[in-house]
């Protein structure tokens, strides 16, 4: 029970009579010389002071209840309590947001590339940790050439990206765009890192860029490694001579147009007779995969 001790200069009998009349429960009454001490519930305090408001009673609070003492102490130190509360709230809130990104990497990847990839997956400074898709960001970082380990963790309000690469400071990473070395049509394009310049179905000419070595963050262009591939379909024509028009010679002629990293989708063979044999005129449709920084 929350009881406050009151002391008044009055006879016990008169004080008790007044308190009873006001229906106030009193506890632990005691006479101490001319003073009368008693306890009342906190909720009755105002009534008690109203009853004994005349100066002759000299009413005063002798000992506040524990709750009243806490409230008084809190009110006296309102600034301190408010400051401490604000600090706790700010600490709790700031812990939910990314205030800094730390990148630990033994490879040759610039920090800006790594933070750009993490940023694209929701892990940017000022954003909440919950907006980061860690699995996707980790997957994309692991797809970088030579990356063998990737861990994204949270330390307070700092997002820590640990990256390990086999090809520490390797010169094999190409810091350039993926450029087409033939004319054709883009059948498929995948940019793990970087920005695709063409879409599927687009025509592409030799020397045109397929994947840019940069990311677009808002209105800014952030340099990065271009990582990815593009399948380009193109038409070709070859003339191959043979001693005669046989099935074996045709197979051999078709095999001669096949190259590594190239699939023949279709081929049309016309035969032209010559003095010493035949010439196969082969018109074909092929798909070649062009890639950059893929292991």
């Amino acid at each position, binding site marked *: 029970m929350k009881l406050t001790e009151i002391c008044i200069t009055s006879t*016990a*009998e008169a004080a008790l009579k007044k308190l009873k009349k006001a229906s106030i429960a009193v506890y*632990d009454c005691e*006479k101490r010389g001319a003073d009368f001490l008693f306890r009342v519930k906190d909720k009755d305090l105002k009534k008690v002071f109203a009853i004994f408001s005349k100066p002759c009673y000299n009413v005063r609070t002798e000992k506040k209840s524990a709750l009243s003492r806490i409230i008084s102490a809190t009110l006296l130190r309102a600034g301190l309590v408010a400051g401490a509360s604000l600090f706790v709230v700010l600490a709790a809130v700031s812990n939910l947001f990314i205030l800094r990104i730390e990148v630990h990497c033994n490879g040759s990847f610039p920090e800006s590339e790594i933070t750009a990839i993490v940023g694209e997956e929701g892990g940017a400074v000022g954003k909440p940790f919950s907006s980061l898709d860690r699995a996707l960001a980790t997957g994309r970082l692991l797809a970088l050439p030579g990356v063998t380990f990737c861990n994204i963790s949270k330390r307070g309000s700092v997002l820590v990206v640990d990256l390990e690469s086999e090809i520490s400071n390797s010169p094999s990473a190409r810091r350039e765009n993926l450029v087409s070395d033939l004319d054709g049509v883009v059948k498929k394009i995948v940019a793990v890192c970087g920005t695709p310049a063409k879409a599927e179905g687009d025509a592409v000419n030799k020397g045109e860029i397929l994947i840019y070595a940069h990311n677009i963050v808002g209105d800014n262009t952030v340099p990065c490694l271009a990582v990815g591939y593009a399948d380009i379909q193109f038409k070709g024509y070859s003339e191959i001579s043979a001693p005669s028009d046989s099935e074996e010679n045709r197979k051999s002629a078709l095999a001669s147009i096949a190259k590594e990293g190239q699939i023949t989708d279709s081929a049309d063979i016309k035969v032209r007779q010559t003095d010493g044999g035949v010439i196969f005129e082969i018109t074909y449709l092929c798909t070649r995969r062009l890639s950059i920084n893929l292991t």
Partner: protein
Amino acid sequence: MKMISQILKELGADEDRAFTVVPSFGAYFKCVLAITEFSSQRVVLKTTFGTLTLSGDGLKVGEYFECDAIIRGNIEEVKIDEID
């Protein structure tokens, strides 16, 4: 208390006139209209059925609310002056 009330009822006593004294602890009184005198040696209670004068030492009003009073301390004597 329930058993005491039951006994008093079966005996035909007026329960409101009953009070309980516990030696060296204190006492509980009902139907108290006023505490007309109060010191550590003597407490006088005006009740609906008369005046009770308590003597002893270390007497304190443990609780007093409406018509119920608990007097704590070592009560040695209770004098009853009934209203005729």
